[in-house]
């Protein structure tokens, strides 16, 4: 479970306010979507959640752990697929994943067992032992997800996971995220794609201009805006259509 309270982050010595007073809760066994146009502050919010950025003010807990007090424990609790999904081209997919397993301090046998599992779930058996040069976007995302989840985390953060994926891979990805939810994981993903949240998310947090514009289930958001479909609701709630098509 993630609790974020009044997170604020500025850049350039306070001139650019990227995230302003963002609060939300993401529960276990649910998929929470951070929805917002490009540049709304989704990635910055996530970076604060996975502790690569320190908030200027506000605080958060992941399963009750305070990152200020236990920065390493919180990283162990999280599985993160960030916006940057760089792989090591000269290593095979398996070696890429194994490296992260070692960095997590897992034992050899555990790592291999887990890789087998993830290969099975994500359908990577065809390319698991190939070097990652020339991998397709879909293959790269799968490897990035596998290495992020090598330690079987309870809480999973994904930044724009379906960016650059074709329809089939996107479907497989959604299936996989639902599977995680079924296991009781807390899944948080950011996206600017309406259909994604509609198809996947139990709760939606709409972020615009660094602020939370609205929060709730899809139905709640429709009710609140008085619109018939989610896209119109979204436009109404953030107050403009800007960034939607990007």
């Amino acid at each position, binding site marked *: 479970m993630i609790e974020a309270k009044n997170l604020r982050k500025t*850049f350039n010595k306070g001139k650019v306010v990227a995230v302003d007073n963002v609060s939300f809760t993401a529960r276990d066994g649910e998929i929470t979507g951070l929805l917002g146009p490009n540049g709304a502050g989704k990635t910055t919010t996530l*970076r604060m959640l*996975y*502790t*690569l*950025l320190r908030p200027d003010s506000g605080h958060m807990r992941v399963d009750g752990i305070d990152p200020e007090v236990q920065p*390493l*424990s919180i*990283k*162990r609790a*999280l599985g*993160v*697929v*960030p*916006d*940057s*999904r*760089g*792989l*090591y*081209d*000269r*290593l095979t997919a398996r*070696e890429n994943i194994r*490296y*992260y397993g*070692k*960095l*997590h*301090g897992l034992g050899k046998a555990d790592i291999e067992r887990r890789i087998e599992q993830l290969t099975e779930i994500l359908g990577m058996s065809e390319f698991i032992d190939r070097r990652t040069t020339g991998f397709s976007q879909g293959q790269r995302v799968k490897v*990035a997800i596998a*290495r*992020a989840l090598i330690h079987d985390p309870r809480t999973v953060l994904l930044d724009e996971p379906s960016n650059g994926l074709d329809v089939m891979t996107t479907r497989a990805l959604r299936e996989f995220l639902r599977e995680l939810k079924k296991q009781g994981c807390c899944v948080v993903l950011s996206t600017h794609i309406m259909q994604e949240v509609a198809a996947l998310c139990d709760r939606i947090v709409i972020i615009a201009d660094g602020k939370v514009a609205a929060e709730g289930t899809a139905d709640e958001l429709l009710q609140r805006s008085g619109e018939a479909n989610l896209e119109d609701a979204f436009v109404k709630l953030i107050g403009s259509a800007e960034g939607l098509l990007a």
Partner: protein
Amino acid sequence: MNAVFIKELLDNFRDRRVILNTLVIGPLMGPVIFAVMISFMASQAAERMESRLELPVVGAENAPNLIGFLERQGVLIEDAPEDPEGAVRREDEEVVLRIGPDFGEAWEAGRPAPVEIIADQSRRYTGASISRVRSYLHGYSQQVSQLRLQLRGVHPEITRPINVTVKDLSTPESRGGMVLAFLPYFILITVFMGSMHMAIDTTAGERERKSLEPLLINPLPRWQIMAGKLGATTFFALATLALGLIAFVYAMGFLPVASMDVALNLDFRVAGLAFLLVAPAALLAAALLTILASFAKSFREAQSYMGMVILIPMIPSFWILIDPSRAETWMTLVPLLSQNVLILELVRGEAVNWAWFGFSMGTTGLLAGILAAVAGTLYNRPRLIFTSA
């Protein structure tokens, strides 16, 4: 930390270009350039000293005795070109001798008879020829003056109030040291060459391929990640250094050492000591280059910084070349300069001064440690992590 170290090594060993550049060309370049340079210099010097001196003379008919003396000394007298000054300026001739028409008259009158050496002294290679012509003329002049004194009943010794001789205390090893003045530079540069690619690949490269952000999300203190990278870079630097020194030892075997009358004291024992001496500099190079490369956003940007850094180990080498004073204690306290000085001591075959060794390794190690500590803190800055932030 170990995981990072092992992964970086595995990753880079897979890249054939890296292996070729770092572990083959890097260590070989120094010894090969050095050997070629030295043997070229040696053969040129030998050629100049041993070949017959060809000397164009203007107005040879004015001093037949002098010409006869020169020919007996083995000088090949040639006809002078039309325009001696022009010929020298055009570099057709190195040296031309001019004996004026008033030579005979002055000679008869017992006045100093004028002879001109026409040469361009700013041309380095003419130095040897000019001094040879001078010494022949001086020899002739002395011979004649002694004869004249004897004719007047004066003992010629009286014109030599002092007798100067030079006692050369240089050993073959120390003469070799002069030839080897550039050796420390070539050795030091190997650690910079060896760590360059790794330093860039593990930092700027990681950022360019967007794998740095996910890497830092792992539950590992950031300094440990940096330490693993730095360890791998230092490992490569040391490997390059070791290979470079081995190559040097073999390259020395090909040099025409005998003809230069010098002994180059570079066997495996000296190479081993040199390795020990330069090892802290390997960490220094790795840390320095890693810090620089961390600020670069891409491989190319990092490479453009590196060109300048490669000049750093050159500075002390050039300084020693320009001002070849003897080793003093303070020198051994200055990183990079100390390696230069002490490698020179080693190849000159001097006894090892362990205190100096300790100073050099201590100060260089200390500076390297400080730089490494700075590198360890770099990934606490968000600016250096995100490709766009």
